[in-house]
C-alpha cells in the first residue's frame, strides 16, 4: 500500500470538511430563516466531526494530532478545493455550494465504503448517513427554491454559474490517482465527477435552473496542492485565533 497516496487522499477529504464546516458555521445567528440557521449550524458540526475522523486516520498513519493539523498549518499547506473556502456570500450562494459539494461528497463516501483500506471503510460507513441527510437537505431546498419566484431562481442561477468552475475543482486529479485506483483504495476523480454530474442534472431538471455548458468552463484547480484564493488564510487565522493564544491549553 502506498502510504503517501493514502495520505494525499485523506488530507483533501478532511480539509474540505473542515473548511466547509467552518464556512457553514458562519451562518449561525444569521440564517435567512431560523430553520435554515439551525440546519447550516448542525451540518457545520457534522462536517467538523467528519474532518476529525479523517484527521484521526492521518494521525494513525504518523501525521500530527488532529488539533495540530487543523490549527497550525498555513493556507499553502491545505488540500481543500477552492470551492469550500469561498466566503458564504448570500444564502443562495451558500445553498448552491452546499448542493454542489455534498452531491459529490456522498458519492465519494459511497466509494470509500468499498475501499481496500479498512480504516477508511469503517469511518465512511459510520458517517455516510449524515452526508446522505446533507444531500437530502440540499436537494430539497434547491428543488423548492429553484422553481419558486423569479428572484430566487435568478439568484440561484447566478450563484450556480459562479460556483461551477470552483465545483469542478473538487475533481482535480491526485498525483497518485493511478496508484489509488490500482490498489483499490479509491475509484478515482474521473468516475466521481461523471456520477456527480448525472445526479446534479437529475435535481436541476426538476427546477427552472440551467446547468451551464461544462465544456466552456475551466475548472478552478490548484486547491489540492496548496494553491488557494485570498479567502483561505483569513479564515484559518480566525479559526485558530483562540487556539494560538495558548496551544498547550487543555479545553
Amino acid at each position, binding site marked *: 500500500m502506498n502510504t503517501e497516496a493514502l495520505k494525499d487522499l485523506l488530507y483533501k477529504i478532511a480539509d474540505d470538511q473542515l473548511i466547509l464546516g467552518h464556512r457553514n458555521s458562519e451562518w449561525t445567528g444569521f440564517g435567512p430563516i431560523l430553520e435554515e440557521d439551525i440546519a447550516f449550524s448542525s451540518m457545520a*458540526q457534522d462536517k467538523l*466531526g467528519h474532518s476529525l475522523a479523517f484527521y484521526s486516520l492521518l494521525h494513525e498513519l504518523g501525521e500530527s494530532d488532529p488539533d495540530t493539523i487543523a490549527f497550525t498549518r498555513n493556507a499553502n499547506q491545505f488540500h481543500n478545493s477552492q470551492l469550500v473556502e469561498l466566503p458564504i456570500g448570500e444564502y443562495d450562494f451558500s445553498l448552491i455550494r452546499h448542493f454542489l459539494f455534498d452531491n459529490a461528497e456522498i458519492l465519494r463516501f459511497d466509494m470509500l465504503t468499498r475501499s481496500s483500506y479498512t480504516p477508511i471503510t469503517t469511518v465512511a460507513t459510520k458517517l455516510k*448517513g*449524515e452526508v446522505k*441527510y446533507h444531500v*437530502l437537505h440540499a436537494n430539497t431546498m434547491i*428543488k*423548492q427554491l429553484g422553481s419558486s419566484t423569479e428572484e430566487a431562481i435568478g439568484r440561484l442561477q447566478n450563484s450556480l454559474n459562479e460556483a461551477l468552475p470552483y465545483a469542478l475543482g473538487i475533481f482535480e486529479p491526485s498525483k497518485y490517482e493511478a496508484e489509488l485506483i490500482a490498489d483499490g483504495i479509491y475509484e478515482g476523480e474521473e468516475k466521481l465527477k461523471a456520477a456527480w454530474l448525472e445526479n446534479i442534472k437529475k435535481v436541476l431538471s426538476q427546477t427552472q435552473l440551467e446547468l451551464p455548458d461544462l465544456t466552456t468552463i475551466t475548472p478552478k484547480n490548484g486547491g489540492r496542492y496548496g494553491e488557494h484564493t485570498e479567502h483561505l488564510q483569513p479564515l484559518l487565522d480566525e479559526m485558530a485565533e483562540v487556539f494560538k493564544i495558548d496551544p498547550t491549553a487543555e479545553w
Partner: protein
Amino acid sequence: MSLQSLDPRVNRLHLPENPSEPVAKTELDQLETYEVFHQKKENAAYTYVGPVHAPNEEVAFLFGKEQYSRRFACTGMWVAETRHVMVTPYTDEAVSVYDVIRINQENAMENGEKTAEAYEIFHLKKRGKAHAHVGTVTATSYEGALAEAKKQFGEMKPVVNVWVIKAADVFRSEADDKDIWNTTKDKMYREATAYRVMDKITKFKEEQAAK
C-alpha cells in the same frame, strides 16, 4: 377622560380616547403548519413532537428533522399537514373519549361509492402528554375510521383525545434512508452538558488567590 397607569410601559401605548371602528386583522404572512411525529427507537410507536411551518411536506420533513431529531435518539419521522388532522373533543381522564363521542352513523357507514383507504389513529392518554400512534384502520371517511378505531382500540384506556389522519396524507421517512438518523453518539460536543468547566474555573480562581 384618559386612562393613566402607574406603569410607564402602559402609558407609552398612547391608547386613543375614542377608539376607531374595529377592523379585520390582517392575515399573517406565514407558511402552513405541519404536525411532526417521531419514532424514538425501532418498532416504537410514532409520537407527536410538535409543529413546523413549511411550504410543503418535503421541506416540513427537513425542518422537523432539524428541530425535533437532533437532541434525542430518533429512528424515523412522519409529517402531516395540520388541516389533515381530524381531532375529537377532549375528555377528563376518568372517561374514555370513545365512550362519549357521537359518531354520525350515516357518514360512518361503509359507502359503496367511496373507496376504502387507510387512516392512522393516534391516542392521547393524558392531557399535557403527546399523541401516540396506536394503529391503522380502513374506512371510507374520517367518521368511519373513528368508528372502526372504537371497535379496535376502544378498550385501550385512558384515551382523552383521538387524532385521525389519512395514511395518504402522512409523509414518511424512507426505509432506505434509515442511516440518516445515525448521528454518532460520540459527538458529545453538541451538548452543553459536555462542557464541564466549573472545576477548571475553581482551580484557576484558587491559583489566582494564591498569587
